[in-house]
């Protein structure tokens, strides 16, 4: 039984500080905390997540709205009186509208998650670029590329928010699928030179395979960092050789390796060394002793 020297209350087993006054518990129980003794579970409910708290205040938004509105109206009036229609003022007006959305949205919709705010911001930028392209003549001329890139960026950001890091495999699959779709679209949009299937997809699949191997190794051997690092080094060397072969097949049409043995010659011995160290406790202890930081 531990007591707080300041408050005089008896404390729950295992506490290092008094929850009431934060005084350190000097005679803390030495023994490990029994599962059955803890009053509450450690599981964090999903609804407890950080909200946007860097959002500007409403007063700032009103001020920003006013500041943005003045040049917006001025450009509109000048353009309209000179040309009797909207011509060049379209560009400053849409830019100012975008600026307003980026500033005001997080504040006006406080309580929204960062994910919702990011989604809105990315969507606004994409719509802005598309509208510029549309207004300047033959559509689509250039805006599809940044719009697709923004969509890919959104997929990268959205996956961890939607599936959480607990389902990292799902996140990685979504990331790679998104990248594959992006590369495929680029291939088609740039005139269909058919580089996606012989080059883009194999490189992507190899990278995805290496990432999955590294993740799996990290998960299965959590307390063995050397094993994970060794596996990662090994996976990277396989990936490098694979990329080399795929590139040569695409460019020269021959199944050869050129530059990849050089980095592989660095990674593979490194990986073997780490495996040996992991399974030789005395060598590991010696190295820790010699190289501790």
């Amino acid at each position, binding site marked *: 039984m531990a007591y*707080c020297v300041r*408050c*005089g*209350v*008896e*404390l*729950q087993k295992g*506490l*290092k*500080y*008094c*929850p*009431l*006054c*934060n005084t350190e518990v000097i005679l803390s129980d030495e023994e490990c905390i029994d*599962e*059955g003794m*803890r*009053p*509450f*579970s*450690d*599981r*964090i*409910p999903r*609804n*407890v*997540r*950080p*909200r946007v708290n860097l959002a500007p205040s409403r007063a700032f938004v009103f001020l920003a709205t006013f500041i943005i509105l003045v040049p917006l109206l001025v450009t509109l009036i000048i353009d309209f009186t000179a040309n009797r229609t909207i011509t060049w003022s379209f560009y400053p007006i849409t830019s100012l509208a975008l600026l307003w959305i980026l500033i005001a949205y997080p504040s006006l919709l406080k*309580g929204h998650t960062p994910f919702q705010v990011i989604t809105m911001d990315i969507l606004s930028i994409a719509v802005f670029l598309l509208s510029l392209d549309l207004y300047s003549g033959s559509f689509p001329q250039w805006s599809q590329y940044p719009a697709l890139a923004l969509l890919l960026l959104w997929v990268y950001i959205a996956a961890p928010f939607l599936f959480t890091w607990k389902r990292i495999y799902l996140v990685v699959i979504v990331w790679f699928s998104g990248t594959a779709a992006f590369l495929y679209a680029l291939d088609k949009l740039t005139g269909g030179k058919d580089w996606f299937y012989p080059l883009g997809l194999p490189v992507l699949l190899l990278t995805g395979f290496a990432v999955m191997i590294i993740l799996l190794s990290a998960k299965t051997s959590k307390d063995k960092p050397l094993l994970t690092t060794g596996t990662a080094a090994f996976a990277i060397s396989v990936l490098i050789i694979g990329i080399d072969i795929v590139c040569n097949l695409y460019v020269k049409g021959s199944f050869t390796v050129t530059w990849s043995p050089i980095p592989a010659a660095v990674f593979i011995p490194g990986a073997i060394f780490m495996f040996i160290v992991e399974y030789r406790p005395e060598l590991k202890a010696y190295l820790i002793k010699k190289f501790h930081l």
Partner: protein
Amino acid sequence: MAESSKNKNISTDNKDWYRLDNAALIYPSIQSDRITTMFRLSMTLKEKVDPKILQASLEEVIKWFPFYRVRLKKGFFWYYLEHNPALPRIERDVRYPMGRLHPNLGTRFLFRVRYWQSRIAVEFCHVLTDGTGGMTFLKALVYDYLKRKGKDPGDPGDIPVGELPEEAAEDAYNRFYKNPLPLPDKGNKAFHIKGKLLHPGAIMITTGIIPMDAIIKEAKSRNVSLTAFLVAVYIDALQEIQDSLVSQNPKKRPIALQVPVNMRSIYPSKTLRNFSLFVMPEIDPRLGKYSFEEILQIVKETLITETNEKAISKSLARNVGGQRNWIVRAIPLVFKKLLMPFLYTRMGENLCSGTLSNLGLIRLPEGMSKEVERIDFILGTNPINKTGCGVCGYRDKLVINFAGNTRDKSVERLFFTRLIKMGIPVKIEVNEEIKKEPLSLKYRRDN
């Protein structure tokens, strides 16, 4: 007679849907991640909980409580509760209980059953019921669970073991409403603790476990009830906090505590939906510092004079009268929703500095009490008052649970150290240990 026919109209029409009772009306509109309108009751058993058996018990027991087997739906003028054909699922317990139920989705139940090691907890949204209703449900659930586990929980007594009569689902507020009575005082804005709020949904629970005989002895020696004694200690703690923040008396605010009163002890109703109102013992520190004895005297007298049928019927008349007003009824829900948070803040939370709810001594059948080690009652928090206190006695222990949504635990510290100074031993438990941010009584000014 005319009155009774009116009551019938207001009460449940059939088992497919229920009108919200008077206390529940406001909650759906004010619900947010910060005001979850939840409370939690739990029983800690001697043995580890078997989730499969608990699920089977829940599926059986929920059939006896059809008025809890509901989901919240939007009508044009009011929210209502609709029968939910699905069966509730038990959940694993979490560190921050009483998270919002998102009833607006219209598919979920308005309560949860959670388990953790040897503990079975139910978390109710106040739209459904109050502490008494929640405790009846928990007793029925644990009773059935123990029976399925092959234990002998004994004679059930008042614990439901089959389908409940229709009177359990009545809206008792409407039944006992009397035609216009003088309205209660509007009240003044009370003192509130300041502090940075935690993430929405996060909650700091501080549990004080106290030997029943020691605290009863202390209350008796001062010739007051246990509730009055605890309320006085709470007010005294708040007074000290305000004194440390505001030096000039005229700038101080009244300190008032909301103390829920179980109306079933005043009116002959067996409803298991909401049927409680508040009394508010209050001190006015503008008049000077109150000694503990003075606070005790004020609390004692308030609890005696305000918890009788005549005094409480004034609050009942104000609340139900508002609900029955034709103009109020004719306002579409969309507009009512805009008005409700304002009413809640202005007429509820602004007027008090905290809440202390005492469920009293919980009695269980002999066989059941051999299997149940402890009972806890935790109130949800809100961003204005920040801390709520739920009290519940069982066997030889009184369990006082403070739930707060800031990291600061000054109220809890001042409350429990006062008891320690009186010679009452207190054991503290928490759901999360705070290691940083040293304790500070340097509050911002409350004005």
